[in-house]
């Protein structure tokens, strides 16, 4: 799994590339926690290039989402599709996660 960060004004977009599985999902969690330490307040997690997700990956998203909710900060998850969408649907968490269509929409939504 590869993580790349881009920036659009005060919004940080994390492009996740590859497989979010039991061996590497913690990396996303660690990255977001470091970003929160740096007082970043608006984050987009872009799952466009994620081909595989398992319960560890879903667990990482739950952890990130609940931490950001508790802190009153802003998070959007984009491009949830294919087997990633199916796995989230099986856990019935589509309504729990702050999901929006794509990065452009997410940036628009998070722009004051």
């Amino acid at each position: 799994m590869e993580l790349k960060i881009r920036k659009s004004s005060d919004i940080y977009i994390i492009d996740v590339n590859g497989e979010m599985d039991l061996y590497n999902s913690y990396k996303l969690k660690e990255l977001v926690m470091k970003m929160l330490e740096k007082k970043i307040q608006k984050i987009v997690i872009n799952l466009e290039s994620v081909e595989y997700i398992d319960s560890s990956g879903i667990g990482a998203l739950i952890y990130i989402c609940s931490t950001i909710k508790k802190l009153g900060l802003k998070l959007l998850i984009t491009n949830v599709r294919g087997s990633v969408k199916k796995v989230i649907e099986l856990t019935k968490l589509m309504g729990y996660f702050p999901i929006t269509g794509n990065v452009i929409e997410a940036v628009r939504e998070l722009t004051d």
Partner: protein
Amino acid sequence: MSDIKSILQESQHPLFSRESMFSKEFPSDYRQIRYFTLMIVQKAPPEIKEINLLEQQISEIIKNAVKHGNHSDPQKKIRVWYSFSTEEARLIVEDEGDGFTAIDEWNAFNKERLACLAQEDYIKLADYVSYRTEKSDDNDGGNAMFAAVEYWNEGVVFDDKGSCVAVGKRFPKKRPGIELS
């Protein structure tokens, strides 16, 4: 059928029938869980793989046996029985651990979780998105079995000891096509 799906515990359940199933034995090597899964899922016809959903669901069952059942002890093995057709996937995984003894507790937790979802109470749901015990670590998502009881539509059944789990999924029959000569 009830909308609330639960984990069953019944050694005599038909899903434990090993007739006509292939079997393999693996060491409890956490690093190789996805490799073991691929060795099994390669036998499945592409129609039922749903990209990699079948692989992912099998991997979760194997991970639970290696990690939570055998505590990744290399001296302990897991045994896997499996059979696939275009209409059904079945899997039995047995570990050498003490058994999953919190089945009633897990079912009660899942019932609460589903109630939060039904009421769209996302604030309370935050307490039920992940099933954790004192043995859980940071890499445990705590959600694998929520998905498993939804995915394996023939059931998720543990034996009486709790160290062997059988799952099955029936896939919709494809409409018969007309063969053209």
